[in-house]
């Protein structure tokens, strides 16, 4: 059982890599395709509802979509005081996409990999080498892709709000202020270092928080799946129910922090 279990866990934690020998220039086909599919689900439903949106007598789906949009809109308006056409759609996309990616965790942990193995076997592959990880947000590539995009947005917002010179000046003169020229020159590299740490800490904390939560959640589902089948529900049901909260909360936290970071970027200190 022990080596079997290790094998099982290892198998579950291996990505479907397009070409493991290619180093950086290889793809996680599972992460990419599942998240792309979920992106289509989100964009499709929301665009359909937006296209058919009725002012009077909206249907249930429209009301649900409106509720989500209204929630995001309220948060953005409360936190972000600048004018931007990007931030609200960005926040909505983040929330919905991450939520859908996280929600893949609630599918039975063996369901999609088992289907993939059978399909792979039918296509003549060795089922032991057919890998599929269905939770894209448990892949650092997915979470960092988003958080680094957010970091680029932070830089972009800073520059557009303060100008390249204004932002550069802020990088060199805050958080430590000085009055004399000499002190200013001395403090400039220290300030710059602090600012760089602050700037880099944001995407790292964003993506690692999401990744850690989802990875651990997935791992616990895998461990529960190792129990005898008759007892799995005792732990599996509470964990899944709790996980509904976790996946929503993580999506919300990512969105809120993005809004907060962007509003900090446009406000002058």
């Amino acid at each position, binding site marked *: 059982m022990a080596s079997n279990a290790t094998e099982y866990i290892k198998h579950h934690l291996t990505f479907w890599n397009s070409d493991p020998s290619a180093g950086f220039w290889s793809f996680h086909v599972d992460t990419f395709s599942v998240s792309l599919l979920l992106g289509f689900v989100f964009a499709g439903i929301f665009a359909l509802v937006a296209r058919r949106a009725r002012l009077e007598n909206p249907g249930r789906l429209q009301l649900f979509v409106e509720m989500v949009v209204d929630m995001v809109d309220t948060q953005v308006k409360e936190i972000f005081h600048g004018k931007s056409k990007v931030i609200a759609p960005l926040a909505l996309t983040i929330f919905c996409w991450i939520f859908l990616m996280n929600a893949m965790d609630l599918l039975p942990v063996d369901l999609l990999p088992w289907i993939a193995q059978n399909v792979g076997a039918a296509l003549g592959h060795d089922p032991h080498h057919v890998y599929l990880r269905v939770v894209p947000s448990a892949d650092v590539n997915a979470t960092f892709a988003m958080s680094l*995009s957010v970091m680029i947005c932070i830089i972009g917002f800073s520059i557009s709000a303060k100008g390249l010179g204004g932002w550069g000046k802020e990088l060199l003169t805050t958080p430590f202020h000085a009055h004399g020229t000499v002190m200013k020159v001395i403090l400039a590299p220290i300030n710059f270092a602090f600012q760089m740490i602050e700037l880099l800490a944001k995407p790292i904390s964003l993506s690692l928080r999401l990744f850690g939560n989802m990875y651990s959640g997935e791992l616990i589902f895998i461990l529960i799946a190792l129990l005898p089948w008759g007892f799995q529900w005792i732990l599996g049901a509470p964990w899944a129910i709790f996980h509904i909260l976790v996946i929503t909360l993580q999506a919300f936290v990512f969105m809120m922090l993005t809004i907060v970071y962007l509003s900090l970027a446009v406000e002058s200190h």
Partner: protein
Amino acid sequence: MEFNATLLGQAITFAILVWFTMKFVWPPLTNMMDERAKRIADGLAAAERGKQDLEAAEKRVADELRTAKQQATEIMLAAEKRASQIVEEAKEAARTEGAKLLADAKGQIDQEVLRAKEALREQVAELAVVGAEKILRREIDAAKHADLLASIKAEL
């Protein structure tokens, strides 16, 4: 943790999703929701206005009703007054007419009496004259004493 080109792929997907949301999802939905909020606000304002209008109309109706009642009362009072006046006038006219008729009748009666008296007196005078003539025929010349006879006739 292994980083590879998935990162770039995911970032591109993310960028496209954000662009798509920005272009096709967010504006129509928020515009529609804003418009709905506006329409609801307008509807509430219109309802409020309608309520006020109704109250004003009710007040006006009550006012009109009161005025109409008052006018009706006035008209009735005036009519009654006029009726009693007409009755009074008719009574007065009747009374005057009756008095006049009475007076006429009395006048006529008086005249008749007077005329009868006159006739009587004339007859008496004539009888007296005739009597006197008969008595005095022999002694009195009618022509001579005509003035005397006339004066007697006038006195009678």
